[in-house]
């Protein structure tokens, strides 16, 4: 009887202890999963914030859209720009956006966000081309000017009554074709130009005093610069295609850099703003 009682007591105690151990281990596992869920949520938040800030910023503020990057006989980058007009200060718009993101937006998201090299310019890599939108002018400056093979440009404007037009003389081996559509007519010319020479522009002057001008060559001391200038008018650059010599590196279009930090979770991410990739 005594032995039976003893056995019953021990069994019961072990049973209770097993339950206790099971619950303690369950709690430990639960805490571990909760911590993983919190970290995973912080990661999701970080990716979401990055996409939110950088997803459409260049097309929304600069109206600059990279249509495609193809790598065949040439590496060709095609972009367009809607509403090219001198009435907009694109540099200031980008600064305003940067201030908002680094200020109010960072605060409401309980994060520290920094945008660097965030300007009215985007970059085509690995060719070192910089596309800058400045009011009614778009500059495409290329460090390695000899890498440019051809440039095709299509512009449309609501202006009418072409009073004069012109094209540059052939001076080199970069093929340029320029189409300017305006109300009641069009201008379509080609030329082969030297990127190191100060070539004359393609241009159309309108009766209203407005002018659409495309220039390629040495400009402001920089060789291989393409300048698309619309003065006293609004125009859409429906297609700008820049063809480069093929490269072993992947062609991509990038903007500035973004750094997002969550002090509470001790997480930081710094990356280049990727606009498009070939």
């Amino acid at each position, binding site marked *: 009887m005594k032995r039976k009682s003893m056995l019953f007591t021990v069994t019961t105690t072990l049973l209770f202890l097993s339950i206790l151990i099971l619950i303690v281990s369950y709690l430990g596992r639960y805490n571990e999963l909760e911590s993983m869920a*919190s970290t995973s949520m912080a990661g999701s938040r970080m990716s979401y914030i990055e996409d939110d800030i950088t997803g459409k*910023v260049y097309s929304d503020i600069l109206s600059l859209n990279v249509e495609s990057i193809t790598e065949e006989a040439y590496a060709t980058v095609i972009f367009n720009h809607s509403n090219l007009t001198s009435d907009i200060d694109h540099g200031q718009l980008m600064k305003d956006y940067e201030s908002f993101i680094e200020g*109010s937006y960072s605060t409401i998201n309980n994060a520290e966000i920094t945008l660097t090299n965030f300007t009215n310019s985007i970059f085509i890599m690995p060719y070192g081309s910089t596309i800058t939108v400045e009011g009614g002018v778009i500059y495409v400056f290329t460090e390695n000017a000899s890498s440019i093979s051809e440039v095709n440009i299509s512009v449309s404007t609501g202006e009418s009554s072409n009073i004069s037009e012109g094209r540059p003389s052939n001076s080199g081996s970069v093929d340029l074709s320029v189409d300017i559509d305006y109300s009641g007519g069009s201008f379509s010319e080609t030329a082969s130009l030297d990127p190191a020479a100060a070539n004359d522009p393609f241009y159309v002057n309108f009766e209203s005093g407005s002018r659409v001008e495309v220039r390629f060559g040495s400009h402001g001391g920089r060789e291989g610069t393409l300048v698309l200038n619309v003065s006293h008018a609004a125009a859409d650059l429906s297609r700008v295609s820049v063809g480069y010599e093929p490269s072993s590196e992947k062609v991509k279009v990038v903007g500035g850099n973004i750094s997002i930090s969550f002090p509470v979770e001790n997480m930081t991410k710094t990356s280049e703003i990727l606009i498009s990739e070939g």
Partner: protein
Amino acid sequence: MLSKKTMIFTLDALLAISIAILIASSCFVFLSKTSSGVYHVRGAYLISSDSLTVLEKSDALKEAITLNSTTSIEEFIGGMPSQVCGSVTVYDSLSSSKLSVQREGCTSKNLSAVAYRVFVDDEENIYYAKMESWYR
């Protein structure tokens, strides 16, 4: 007068009951430390962020500001699963509220989560939308 044997038996029973109560209480305390709150909040956050992404990419936020109308946002929120509640408020860059929408029939907020989305209108003005989601 209780016999010695009865005394021991009583003490033994009391001890056993005490240990049982102690272990049961410990189990209860440990189990009460778990909660599904973090998963609820995570789910609600994903609903908020995904909803704002759709509203922005479909230009519904831009349209709401341009037309000063909440119709497209109301339609979107009304189309969410019936178990989900949500409210959307759009602010300008100075954090001044421009418009606000809450799903009909949703009042009390249990565990909710908030996401924000920045967008730029056709005049290049900066706005942001705040969406709060929770389960009924």
